[in-house]
Every structure is written in structure tokens, then in C-alpha cells.
């Protein structure tokens, strides 16, 4: 069903938290409407963004200081508003949304290569930026590739 047909455009922002089943509200900061919630799931988010006809913009990866790990920020555009959703990564991995949102393909691959973050549930093409090299060497301070459940990195699995 077309969500935009049901929800008037001006109410779309207000409807998104409800559709995600969370009680938190938007906080506007640094040119972005942020919605932060501990219970937010990235695949649920992608599904709701699709229903709202939001346009995917990008994912930004951050390496946090010390041993605080990595953080991903997902951005979509709705009627000229930038929406931001932040995810702290527990084990340097997060579920891929490529099957839900075709536009994330290259940025998931780039982040995988730059930060050695594993987007689970997808296959990787050969490296986008540094073919044949090790993931995590471009933007991450330590270039240790993340291991998947099989003990191999995603790139090694592709090669296998």
C-alpha cells in the first residue's frame, strides 16, 4: 500500500516513529532530523523508509575513540529534510539492507573496505576501491578485517 497516499506530506515526519513502533521523537541538530532509539532495527528502518518513499542518501561510518568501536549513521531524504539514524556497532557488523534498498550497494561496499565493517546477509563484489587488498586499511586506524561466523572475512568468503 502506498504510505504517501495515506499520510499527508506534512505529517510524514511525525508518522515515521509511529511506523517504527518507537516512542522517541525527532531532534533537529546539525542540519539533520535525528531519531535515536535503542530498539531501532536497521532493516525495519529501511522497510519504513521505502514505504515513506524516502530517498536514501548515504551511510557515514565513524571510528569512535579508544575501544568504543564503530558507529554508522544512515541518512535518508524526505521532502527536502535529511533524516539521520545512528547505530552503534557491537561486533563490527550490522545487517545489510541491500536487498531492501538497492542504493546502499556501493556505500556498504565502501564502508566494508574502508572500515572493515561486515554488512551481513549480502555478498560482496570484488573490492570497490582497492581490488585485492585488505578491508579496513583505508579509513580505519587498525586494519584488522572483521571475521564472520565462519571465521573468514566477507572478502575471504567471496574468494572461497
Amino acid at each position, binding site marked *: 500500500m502506498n504510505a504517501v497516499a495515506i499520510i499527508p506530506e506534512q505529517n510524514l515526519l511525525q508518522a515515521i516513529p509511529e511506523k517504527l513502533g518507537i516512542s522517541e521523537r525527532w531532534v533537529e541538530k546539525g542540519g539533520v532530523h535525528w531519531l535515536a532509539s535503542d530498539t531501532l532495527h536497521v532493516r525495519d528502518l529501511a522497510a519504513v523508509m521505502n514505504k515513506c518513499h524516502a530517498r536514501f542518501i548515504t551511510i557515514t561510518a565513524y571510528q569512535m575513540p579508544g575501544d568504543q568501536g564503530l558507529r554508522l549513521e544512515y541518512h535518508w531524504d524526505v521532502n527536502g529534510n535529511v533524516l539521520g539514524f545512528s547505530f552503534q556497532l557491537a561486533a563490527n557488523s550490522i545487517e545489510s539492507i541491500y536487498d531492501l534498498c*538497492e542504493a546502499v550497494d556501493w556505500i556498504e561496499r565502501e564502508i566494508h573496505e574502508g572500515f572493515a565493517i561486515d554488512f551481513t546477509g549480502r555478498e560482496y563484489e570484488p573490492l*570497490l576501491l582497492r581490488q585485492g587488498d585488505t578491508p579496513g586499511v583505508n*579509513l580505519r586506524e587498525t586494519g584488522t578485517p572483521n571475521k564472520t561466523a565462519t571465521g573468514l572475512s566477507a572478502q575471504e568468503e567471496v574468494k572461497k
Partner: protein
Amino acid sequence: MGPYHPALEEPYKLDMICEGETVIDAKLHIGFNFRGIEHLAESRNYIQVIALMERVCGICSNIHTLTLCQAMEQLTNQTPPPRAQYIRVVVAELERLHSHVLWAGIAAKLMGFKTMFMTCFEIREKVMDVLQAISGNRVNYSMNSIGGVNRDIDDPLAVLAMIEQLEREMVRTVIPIFTTSTTARSRCAGIGVLTNQRAISCGTVGPTARASGLPQDLRRAAPYAAYSEMEFEVPVQHDGDVRARLLVRALEIMESCKILRQALTKMPSGDINTGDAKIVFSTGTATSRVEAPRGEVMYSVSWKENSRNPSRVHVRTPTFANMPAIRWMVMGARLADTPLIQASIDPCYSCTDR
């Protein structure tokens, strides 16, 4: 095909599977010019990082510093004065003219229309002359700074006269040939189609999206600088083919001239920057978006208080969003049409690789 494109002389590679002369599927490979600019930015201070980001792209260099400075202005709580906002619009639109005319020349060459290539490049030189008159530079203009611009436009009406001459030449030659000539029509109509649905699912931006019926333009949807005070149309075509992308850019040239005329005649007097000698950053992340000639550019800039350098600068360029759509454009196309199809998104590999 590649990694050196037959026309664009920038590297990327398209692996195509063909049946005879028909392309069945394709895969794209980029990264041949990866420079690690995002990583380099973390070792540059707030002045050096502007110069670094100006070099992300050789065509839309001004757009990158504009987007970066807008993000840094959020972190330093600065608002550029009105005259600076108008100057930012003037330089951004001149850059759009220069980019679109450059693209038109390359497209003409790929169509086999070499006299048109020469005409476009002659006009482009005149646009660059205007940029040189304003900034002193023809490629990297160094116009933007935190809190405004570095150089004033002393005599906006003199620049206006140059713009009007340019507009006359475009109306007399470029626009009619691209919109009505049989050559342009026969080489561009119905090829490299990107459907509206596919344009949405790929997250395409700029003229590529607008040629597939998506009326998105940040100058209208999320105005920045002085765009909220400008009257202009957002050209949209619905066929999604190479001709539609050509028409969108041709019409955008006219809209850019319209915006330039307004910005130059209505330019307010006053300061061109905030004049703050000391720049103080607050801790946080700021995001800024600008409608570059090829589409939306987005910067996410993170800073820690008392730090001279950004802790992270992420750049999402328009070609990074548009280029994956080439796969869908070339599927079913004739092999001979693929160089023109690829060029029709006006790809910038320099931006994409960063």
C-alpha cells in the same frame, strides 16, 4: 570497456556481457584514482581542509568548499552576511554553466557532432573567463571561507553584461541544436533509458534523476545560500533516455542564466564575511547539502572542541549515487551507444574516487 573511457579520459571500468552487439548485463568498477581525501582531511586544520576539499573535483570545486563551509559554519555558529550568500549563488551558477557546457561539448563529440564540441568549448572558455574575472582563477576559485567568501564582486553589472552575452550565444547555438537537431535526436532518443522506478530505487540525483521524472532539486527543496530569494524553474523530463538528460541540462543552462541575472542585479551591499579572526568549533557533527551540477553533494563533518582538525569528513558525491544506474541504462543497449550512455550521467570519477 575501460579503465580509460574513450571520451572522458578518467578511469573506470565497465565489464559488459554482450550477445552480438546488444549488452545483456554490466558491472562497474571504480577506485582507480582513490586518493584517500576523507582520511587526509583528518590531518588538515580548518583552513587547510577547505583547500583540500576544493580538489575533490576539478569541475565543481566550488561546490565542495561551499558544502564544507556550510557544515563548518553550523559547527562554529556563524551566518554569512547576505552579500556573501549572493556571491555564493553567482559562483555556484557559473560553475553549473561551465559544467553543463563542458558536458554538452563531450556529448556532442560522442554523438559525432564535432563542430558542436568546438562551439561548446568556446562558450565554456567564456564562462571560465567570467569566473577568472571574479576569483582570479579558472579552476579552483578559492571563493568560500568559514563565514562568507574570500573575494567580493566589485562590479556585478559588468559581470551581468558578460552573462547576457553568454546567454545570447547559448540561445542562438547550443540550445536549439541540442533540442531540435536531427543528429542529436537520432543519437539520443530512446537510448540508455532509466525508468522512473529504477531512478528511485538507485537513489539517483540531479539531472539524471530529473530526466527520469523526479522533480528533486535542493535549491528548491532545501534552499541554501540565497536560493530562497531566486525565482527559477526546475526542468523535469519523463522519458529517462539520453535525450531527456540532454534536454534537462540544456534547460538548466537557461535557468542558471535567469538565476545569475537575479543574483547580480539584486545583490545587497555589505560585508562579504563575518570577519571573525578566531574560529571556535563546538563538539558535534554537522551535515550540509548542495545541488551541484551533477546533483546532490552531502558532507558530514565531525569536530571536537579545541581541535584544529576535523575528526571525520564524509563526502557523498552525486556521481557516487548516479553511477550504479549505468548498469540499468546499458542493459539492452547497442554496444556502440554505451560511451554516450555512460557520458549522459555526466560522470565525475575524480569525485567518485575521492
